[in-house]
């Protein structure tokens, strides 16, 4: 089967590069190729592109340009935010606790786990409800001034649930504890302006919103205590050493502009397709349940669990039928484990091993959704143990 006939429904994994983004990037590979740190004109050209990109990204957070740090992606941004503030606030204030949720991306989860096991931080997990949401009142009960950093995912990659970040931010502010949020999924579909007011640190990655892979950003508010994780030259306000990847940063800025423009209009379009898919699956498949919140979820995100279904097998069958989807338990080496996120929501292994994630994007049409709805019941039946 050639790619023309395949239907891509895994936009939460990654997205194709937008042609406009590619065009914006091209001059910075071999024409304005200078090192932004150089004194000469080549360097100045690159620096101008870099700083212009910083301004464009900052604008969408209602932030100052110096509050934007460019990184290699969402994972590095998460590492920098959490490690950087945890170490700085321990050094300065003796804060030794980290609060986070049990539904974080591995970039956060494995980072706090290492901070606990190697560096002696005390990590505590906030409870979540059955949709995967953190309750700000639960945070208030656990929070105190000895907390170095709080990290709560903005919108979950596996189940799509959106957390009440404004309210969570208000609680953190009462205790003057910095709040970080992994918005790698959210930044593609939700306006970030409000978030920039409520949250001190926000991670984004360009390839989730039709930008290139390998570049990301961290919004970090002025005045937040921080230490670099990667040391070297003085780039990125001494917080992230290494010559900046100018063409990719230009690509990130262009893509983020496109993502944040008319974001509500596009969300409405995706929401209609998503709801058609969710309603169709829940109607036609009695052993299906929606995972995550019914309405407070990413507009392009539908995720399900099927009782007694082998999720890996289902993905393989879907791929064979031309549908590229994802699941929380799937793994390429055939060693499926029930996802931690689904277990945190209270799903038993029988449900959690049969998960399916369908995420929509610019290429998705009504016909794609209907084709998937037509094919799914038979494939789910085949994948039922």
């Amino acid at each position, binding site marked *: 089967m050639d790619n023309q006939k395949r239907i891509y429904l895994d936009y939460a994994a990654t997205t194709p590069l937008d042609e406009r983004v590619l065009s914006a990037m091209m001059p910075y590979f071999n024409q304005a190729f200078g090192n932004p740190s150089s004194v000469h004109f080549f360097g100045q050209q690159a620096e101008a592109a870099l700083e212009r990109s910083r301004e464009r990204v900052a604008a969408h957070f209602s932030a100052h340009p110096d509050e934007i740090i460019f990184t290699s992606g969402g994972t590095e941004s998460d590492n920098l935010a959490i490690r950087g503030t945890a170490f700085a606030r321990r050094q300065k204030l003796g804060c030794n606790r980290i609060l986070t949720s049990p539904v974080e991306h591995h970039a956060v989860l494995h980072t706090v786990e290492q901070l606990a096991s190697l560096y002696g931080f005390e990590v505590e997990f906030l409870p979540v409800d059955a949709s995967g949401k953190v309750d700000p009142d639960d945070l208030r009960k656990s929070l105190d001034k000895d907390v170095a950093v709080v990290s709560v995912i903005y919108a979950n990659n596996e189940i799509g649930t959106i957390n009440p970040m404004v309210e969570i931010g208000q609680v953190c502010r009462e205790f003057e504890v910095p709040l970080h949020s992994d918005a790698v999924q959210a930044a593609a579909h939700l306006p970030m302006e409000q978030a920039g007011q409520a949250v001190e640190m926000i991670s984004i990655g360009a390839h989730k919103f039709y930008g290139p892979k390998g570049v990301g950003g961290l919004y970090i508010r002025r005045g937040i205590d921080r230490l670099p994780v990667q040391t070297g030259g003085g780039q990125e306000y001494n917080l992230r050493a290494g010559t900046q990847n100018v063409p990719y940063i230009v690509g990130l800025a262009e893509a983020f502009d496109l993502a944040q423009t008319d974001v509500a209009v596009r969300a409405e379009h995706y929401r209609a397709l998503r709801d058609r898919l969710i309603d169709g699956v829940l109607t036609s498949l009695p052993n299906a349940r929606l995972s995550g919140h019914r309405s407070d979820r990413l507009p392009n995100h539908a995720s399900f669990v099927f009782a007694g279904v*082998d999720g890996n097998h289902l993905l*393989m069958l879907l791929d064979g039928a031309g549908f590229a989807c994802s699941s929380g338990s799937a793994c390429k*080496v*055939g060693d499926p484990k029930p996802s931690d996120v689904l277990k945190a929501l209270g799903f038993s292994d029988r449900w959690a091993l049969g998960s399916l994630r369908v995420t929509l994007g610019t290429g998705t049409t009504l016909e794609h959704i209907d084709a998937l709805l037509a094919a799914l019941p038979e494939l789910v039946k085949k994948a039922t143990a």
Partner: protein
Amino acid sequence: MVDRRNVVVAMSGGVDSSVAAALLVEAGYAVTGMMLRLWIEPGLEAHNRCCTPDAMAEARRVANRLGIPFYVVDVKNAFREIVVEGLLRGYSQGITPNPCLLCNRHIRWGILLENALNMGADCLATGHYARLRRYADGTIELYRGMDDNKDQSYVLSVLDQSQLARTMLPVGEYSKQEVRQLAHSYGLTVAERAESQDLCFLAGQDYREFLARHAPETVRPGAIVDRAGKVLGRHSGLANYTIGQRKGLGVASQLPLYVLEIRMEENELVVGEENELGHRRLIAEQVNWISGKMPASSFHACVKVRYRSPLHQAMVFPIGSDQAEVEFDAPVRGITPGQRAVFYYNNQVMGGGMISSGYD
């Protein structure tokens, strides 16, 4: 949805299955690669040669190079339940099963074939060195591979007509040497890895240690006796011995002694001299006749009594629908209950069954 041209290849990352896939792609089939994720004793994952991350990466590279989709199929639970439990059960009954045969029948040509058919494939192809001949009336015959040294028809003798109808063996027509050259000409730089292990899930550890942990009744010490019942010494647990074994008996004797028999119920090890080792006859049970039909009469055959055994001249007498008595022209050593006897007529596999006893 049956399309003659859809084939799933069972890939291992090794040269044989990689060339099998390449040959099918070249012949114009729509090929999909699949690899099994088998059970490995927890903690030993890194030592297993067959489905390590390395082997998977290799298979994935080959699939990528050939431009075919590739999936890993998780069969850990079924492998544990069918193959590993089957092995443990065999040892606790005092027999020596061949787990690869269980795996082929129930896992490869069971679950994997089912997965392949589910995906809309018509056939499952593997890198085994054996050949199939298909007739117009739909019957299929199984033959030894072209390469005598590599022939693997023995381990396919468990398959029935419906399984063989869905099987392709693209490398069976070639020698190992030719397969290596083909790999080279296809640009498949498959690393020369060690051959697949017999007990892959043990990842190289001694099977006796495994038995001691999972079937401790097979490692209880007991008496070593001769045919007359005279006690000659003590054994360290019956699982530690195989028929024909000479070393490590710890019994003093003028002539070398060999293991003749394992008596699980009495927990006795029977030993004797070399001239007592061979048997003229054996009984095979659960016989699978490849044709699906019991032969009408006895026939002259060459018989293997284990995977790597030589071919022994014999007469095969079918008994009932699924038993056979084999009468060798000369005594044969190493006839071991639990192992498989496979009957060949010239190069054709007629059938095979599990050895239940050897006698004279």
